[in-house]
């Protein structure tokens, strides 16, 4: 088990290298650069651009820049600046004076970590996940226990919608209903400190996951319900409540629990459309903005964080399986 985890974590290294390589190549083949401004705005003059390029090492050949990003490079004064291997994601080209890790992980003064960009995205993801689990699991259980009744059909209907309708389309519908017609919420709130402004984005983001959770719970409950040990438990004269909670639920939730890690990763990394729609101060919106501004190190940093999150989530599936089901062994 320990060896397995270590091997999988080591496997992250080539993954990060390849992901950053591809991103690097794509990014630098895009026209324009970090010093370009909107056509309407005053442009940075060529001399300043040259100095900036020199300062940030953007005048060096591309392979050298890539090595500098990953390992590090000597700057003009001969000091060695360490790169990704030391956890340094590089300086931002747009928000001068800040490094990428500061932009993403440093909260505004006097606030805790949860108020950083990464913290905001994680919070949104966790709320969405809570919504998905709190609503999805009971819906799946009821649906399975009352199979082929109206309760089952209603829940199946909602689940099908949640699985097939993309979340930004759901967002459009909900915004039209709740913001344009009912005026219950404002779409772009001034501050994210109140609880109620989080409801709409979290519900929209978590809707698909809720549907998938409900569907998975239902399917696995239906499978467990037909198991011999459930019949045995009933034959012993066990109370129905105990049969459901102790025997069926415990076993049927195994696939659901294993899905939680990847779902959370998907929610945190997949939130950028919702973040852009609601003007949310999270990592996803920062990423979209960074791409438009050609903020090279910001694009690299965010992509890498996303890739690592996804890879760790995939690893968590294998591990939770082993923890929950002793019959499964890792190779």
């Amino acid at each position, binding site marked *: 088990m320990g060896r397995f985890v270590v091997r999988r974590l080591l496997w992250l290294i080539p993954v990060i290298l390849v992901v950053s390589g*591809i991103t690097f190549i*794509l990014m630098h083949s895009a026209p324009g650069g970090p010093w370009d401004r909107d056509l309407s705005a005053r442009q940075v003059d060529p001399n300043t651009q040259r100095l900036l390029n020199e300062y940030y090492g953007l005048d060096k050949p591309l392979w050298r820049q890539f090595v500098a990003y990953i390992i590090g490079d000597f700057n003009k004064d001969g000091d060695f600046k360490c790169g990704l291997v030391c956890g340094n994601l590089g300086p931002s080209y747009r928000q001068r004076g800040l490094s990428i890790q500061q932009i993403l992980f440093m909260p505004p003064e006097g606030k805790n970590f949860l108020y950083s960009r990464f913290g905001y995205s994680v919070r949104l993801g966790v709320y969405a996940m809570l919504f998905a689990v709190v609503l999805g699991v009971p819906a799946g259980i009821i649906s399975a226990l009352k199979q082929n009744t109206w309760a089952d059909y209603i829940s199946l209907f909602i689940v099908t919608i949640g699985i097939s309708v*993309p979340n930004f389309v759901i967002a459009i519908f909900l915004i039209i209903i709740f913001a344009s017609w009912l005026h219950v919420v404002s779409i772009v709130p001034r501050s994210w400190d109140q609880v109620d402004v989080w409801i709409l984005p979290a519900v929209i983001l978590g809707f698909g996951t809720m549907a998938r959770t409900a569907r998975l719970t*239902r399917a696995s409950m239906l499978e467990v319900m037909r198991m011999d040990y459930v019949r045995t438990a009933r034959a012993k004269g066990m109370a129905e409540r105990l049969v459901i909670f102790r025997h069926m639920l415990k076993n049927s939730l195994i696939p659901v629990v294993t899905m939680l890690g990847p779902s959370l990763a998907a929610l945190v990394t997949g939130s950028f459309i919702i973040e852009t729609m609601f003007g949310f101060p999270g990592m996803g919106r920062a990423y979209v903005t960074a791409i438009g501004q050609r903020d090279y190190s910001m694009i690299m940093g965010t992509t890498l964080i996303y890739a690592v999150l996804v890879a760790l989530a995939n690893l968590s599936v294998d591990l939770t399986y082993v923890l929950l089901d002793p019959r499964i062994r890792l190779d």
Partner: protein
Amino acid sequence: MTTAHDSATETKNRIAALEVATPQRDLLMDGLYRLLRNRASVLGLIIIVLFVLGALFANFLAPFSPIQIHSGKGFLPPAFVEVGPNGYKSDPAFLFGTDTLGRDVLSRTLYGARVSMVVGFVPTIIILIVGTVIGLVSGYRGGWVDNLLMRVTDVVYAFPDLLFFIIMMITLRDTFIGQMLNGLFLLFTSLAVVSWVGVARVVRGQVLSLKEKEFIEAARCIGARDSRIMFRHILPNSLGPIIIISAMTVPGMIITEAILGYLGLGLRPSTNPNDFFITSWGSLLLEGQTAINAQPWLLLLPAICVSLIVLAFTFVGDGLRDALDPRLQGTQ
């Protein structure tokens, strides 16, 4: 001796003359039969056929040209609403209203269906071919080939795919590749580059379990070549999961196109009325987004269309899964 022989041939003849009580069906026909008995799937199929026809014959069906600007008739609400929230009276000629410039929403949506249909199908076909070949070779060869291919798969799998699409589209949009087919070519390639992984994994899993079966051993014993075993024996037997996964892939592609279009990164809007691809649902959603309060109908029609077509494909996918692999009923 002769009588025994005669009776044997007679039995043989009798057996040959027997009528088969239930007509024989191969696996695929059987699956099709079961699929057609599934009401949701049939409904899904009908919707898909309608959308395909609507997309193909958009130039006949659309009441107006999708880029024709009716001056002075902008912001008209749909015909079934008398007065829109913006105070404009509707015009029965424009069934679903007009946009900012006075272009007919219905016509634009019909033309948008073309992009969604093509984006749904073309990358899926590429993915199927690439994924199947890689999965087959990887699973059948084993050893270092398998190891190498699966490591490549792992890396692609770890890449956050939507981010990859966004970077690809932004990077190559203004290059020669990005201009081909109004940007559709680039869209197809980026979608295909990432998404073959799922198919390859499924096929490899199938191959691994199939290649130990007796009939493969028999084929090897009579001296069949590897390529023959792979494509004539293993491939047909793993068709079920492949068909299921392709039906599940199509709606994913349509959604991705809509998301990219919504971010302003999809198809380049065309101004030539003779072009086949003029606008897409994603770009319609983007245009509608700006006027969400005053003209919600700009968003509603494309949003409903995206939902409907994705729902239809989900129904068909579910139906196919139940029909081709009854053991999986209701899972996933």
